[in-house]
């Protein structure tokens, strides 16, 4: 339970700091500033330890509660204003808890009887009178205890806030959010329509602070929803280089390298995701990723031109830290043996969004023309099981021979093939669905060694970025040339196909779909690679290769 452990430890750390911080403050108030309780040094220390320990549980609950509220409000600690939000909510939660607890404190004191070091001496008149005019410890009954509670809790508010803020500031700010790529047949936990609610109307709730990104796509909204469903805020990610068996679409088992991950509420440290989770961040952030190599040989964690961990020995964990590169799409993974380790599964994608949190692929793009509503990542790979078998046997693979002999039998999009990759139920992260007019940014990435030609039916796409650099000129293509290692960020305009014959011409996507549904067809078009060998599986089985569909929906 790596991620839960990670998350839990962070909450516990905060709770302990909060508990002992607040109780120390209270002790100082009560012993010196207010009532002037007197005791020996040991007595004070004991008192502090006791109250601090007693306070850990309520502080822990306050931490979770505060983080949950901050998370609920979609405040993802993006801008400078939002870093205070979480401590503020935690402090407020603690305040609510403290009001009755301080009253209980009196009961505990009395129950323990006046024995040193745990007992207080009888309260003496002191500075406390200056505050409320009476020593509230003398008060009894519900009203008295609540008054005392209210006063002490109020006094604790600033210190709780400051402790929380200090913790938040001390923590390395990592803005990596994991979007686990669903790479097996799993039912979508939310329907596409629910995703889109977050992409569209529901975005208001998320766009507080830096939440704009979360509204960027159905998939990301889904990840955000996962994060928000439990009181965690995702701010770091652990990756694990794992191995295992993947079943190809014709039932053939193939050994593969891939990734486990732990982040926020997601604990899939033992999983085998191929590709790895989509990491995303903003252009002005610093990123930290923990990488554990669970494989039998050393591997690197590398983003070409950005960071290279160097060899990670089997069983070792390294922390990779880097400033986010220029906005665009990047491949992370093991680039240490030519394309071999990457193609055998050690690959994933890092998305860098503009620092201004706008819904554009790059800050140089005019927002009026090139803003998008949803975004998607399509990762193309190909598999020659003979090389996977070599890796399974622990045999070395020469990158030159790899390129010369590579005869792929399976072609994957985000790890899936053919009909599995072309249905919303089984491929919610590749099957693109939205309503007319909602431009989709699709980041098409080639992590394999074959040259692909992704071809879009239904709409041409605008090629906005190639390999994280704005294209000049922007071309409007129906087929892309996607060479190994290429990343092409294209915009699918989601336009009513203009060459369709309809009288009268449809005025809206809904009109168009109504006319089309009269023919028992859906507004659905494929994207497939036009180097058609990639449409096969196991040497045949057309069309069970590198393809998916996009659909114009009628919401």
């Amino acid at each position: 339970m790596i991620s839960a452990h990670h998350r839990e430890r962070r909450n516990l750390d905060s709770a302990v700091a909060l508990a002992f911080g607040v109780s120390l403050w209270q002790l100082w108030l009560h012993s010196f500033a207010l009532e002037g309780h007197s005791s020996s040094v040991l007595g004070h220390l004991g008192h502090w330890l006791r109250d601090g320990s007693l306070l850990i549980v309520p502080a822990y609950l306050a931490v979770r509660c505060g983080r949950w509220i901050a998370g609920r409000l979609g405040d993802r600690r993006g801008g400078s204003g939002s870093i205070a939000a979480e401590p503020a909510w935690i402090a407020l939660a603690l305040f609510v808890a403290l009001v009755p607890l301080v009253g209980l404190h009196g009961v505990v004191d009395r129950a323990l009887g006046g024995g040193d070091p745990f007992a207080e001496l009888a309260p003496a008149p002191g500075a406390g009178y200056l505050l409320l005019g009476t020593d509230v410890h003398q008060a009894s009954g519900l009203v008295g205890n609540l008054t005392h509670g209210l006063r002490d809790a109020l006094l604790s508010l600033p210190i709780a806030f400051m402790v929380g803020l200090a913790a938040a500031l001390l923590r390395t700010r990592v803005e990596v959010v994991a979007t686990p790529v669903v790479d097996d047949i799993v039912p979508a936990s939310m329907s596409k329509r629910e995703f889109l609610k977050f992409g569209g109307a529901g975005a208001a709730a998320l766009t507080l602070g830096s939440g704009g990104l979360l509204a960027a796509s159905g998939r990301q909204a889904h990840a955000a929803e996962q994060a928000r469903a439990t009181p965690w805020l995702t701010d770091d990610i652990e990756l694990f280089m794992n191995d295992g068996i993947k079943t190809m679409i014709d039932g053939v088992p193939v050994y593969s390298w891939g990734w486990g991950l732990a982040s926020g509420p997601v604990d899939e440290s033992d999983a085998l995701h191929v590709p790895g989770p989509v990491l995303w961040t903003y252009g002005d952030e610093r990123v930290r990723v923990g990488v554990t190599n669970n494989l039998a040989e050393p591997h690197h964690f590398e983003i070409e031109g950005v960071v290279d961990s160097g060899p990670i020995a089997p069983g070792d964990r390294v922390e990779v830290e880097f400033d986010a590169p220029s906005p665009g799409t990047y491949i992370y993974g093991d680039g240490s043996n030519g394309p071999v380790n990457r193609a055998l599964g050690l690959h994933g994608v890092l998305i860098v969004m503009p620092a201004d949190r706008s819904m554009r692929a790059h800050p140089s793009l005019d927002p009026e023309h090139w803003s998008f509503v949803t975004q998607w990542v399509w990762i193309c790979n190909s598999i020659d099981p003979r090389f996977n078998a070599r890796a399974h046997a622990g045999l070395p693979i020469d990158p030159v021979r790899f390129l010369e002999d590579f005869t792929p039998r399976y072609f994957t999009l985000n790890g899936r093939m053919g009909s599995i990759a072309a249905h919303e139920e089984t491929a919610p992260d590749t099957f693109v669905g939205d309503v007319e007019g909602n431009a989709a940014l699709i980041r098409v990435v080639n992590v394999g060694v074959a040259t692909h030609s992704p071809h879009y039916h239904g709409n041409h796409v605008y090629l906005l970025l190639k390999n994280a650099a704005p294209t000049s000129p922007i071309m409007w293509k129906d087929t892309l040339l996607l060479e190994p290692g290429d990343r092409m960020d294209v915009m699918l305009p989601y336009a009513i196909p203009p060459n369709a014959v309809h009288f009268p011409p449809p005025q809206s996507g809904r009109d168009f779909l109504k006319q089309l549904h009269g023919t028992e067809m859906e507004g659905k078009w494929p994207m497939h690679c036009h180097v058609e060998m990639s449409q096969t599986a196991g040497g045949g089985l057309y069309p069970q290769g590198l393809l998916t569909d996009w659909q114009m929906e009628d919401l």
Partner: protein
Amino acid sequence: MSKGSGKDGDRDERDDDDHGGGGDGHAAVDDPLFYWNTTPVEGSPDTPGKVRPDKEFEMNFFNRDLEMPDGRDVEFWGFEDKLIDSDEDVIRPSSLIRVSEGDIVHVTLKPSKRQHTIHLHGIEIDSHNDGVGHTSFEVTGSYTYQFHAGAPFRALDDPRPKTRGAGTYIYHCHVNTVLHFHMGMWGGLIVDPATGPGTAFHNGPDYDDERFWFIGDVDPTWRELGHAAGMKGGDAGLNVFRPIYFDITGVFQPMRSGRTDPNAVIEDPRITATAPVDGVPTLVRLGNSGYGPQEITFHGIADGSLDVEVIASDGRAFDNQAPNYAQPFLLPPGPFVVGTAERYDLLLKPRRRGTSLVTIEQKDWISGKVHGVLQTTVTGV
């Protein structure tokens, strides 16, 4: 329309079945999802909302043999337009579809014995007329594909670029595409501006002469496969592509000792291009109809005798309609890579008289090794 599942491994128009049909003992696939795509709807439905066309084409299936440069006869499949009155058999490429912006176009497919479709590659159309089995249907008897060429793209108030769509497209069969496209079931689809041929696109440059350079490749071993090879399970070898014959729009590069002769030059006047110096340029419609990246080098660019201006791609003019949007650009010296099924419209503008070579290398999609080399010429007059 009916759900079809009874395809056998026949070659089109033939009955022998020695390859690719039955499964070879791979683990059974019992996942119902698997069959979503493998049993496409078949039939001969009516065309929805059919209206009177401005242009009509009637594409019939054919299979014919063509002699290759090494003397071997190789089988090709394709579409032949029966409305064109000609004594000459169409072989490679299939009949041309040429229309103008504003035309309502009917393309009737008569696939003969087996299922085929026509996908109008690059034409943005509703699913019913898109010719894709798994999102619509495969045609058995006949079907009339209907589209509106050059319809204005996007609403007037949309700030993104608009187009009328004049430019270079292709059409092809989308059934078992890996095999059927390669067998030759593709042809050119040209949309002219409303003014007709002679202008590249609305408000675009004029041209006097035009060439179709669709660069293709042929792997004869795939000729042994049946119509549905690789569709039923089992290894038909369709993941391995080793072409040995190469052509520009049906004119093949000469061979020597079993390989294309890299020093030979295609001198067929249907392919070689001429253009006047300081005159109206010649338009080359360049397309990759092979299975792999192609590197084209105009040697006249490097020696300063030729300018090649790229003015459109995939049927979309470079007309600078939006910020950062495409403007025509001159090809730099060196190879220009064109991916499978991409098209580029090029203007040839010779700077001085004389002939320069054009070299095209067809590369392997994985190793990058050169399968074959094609050459032709551009002459400034």
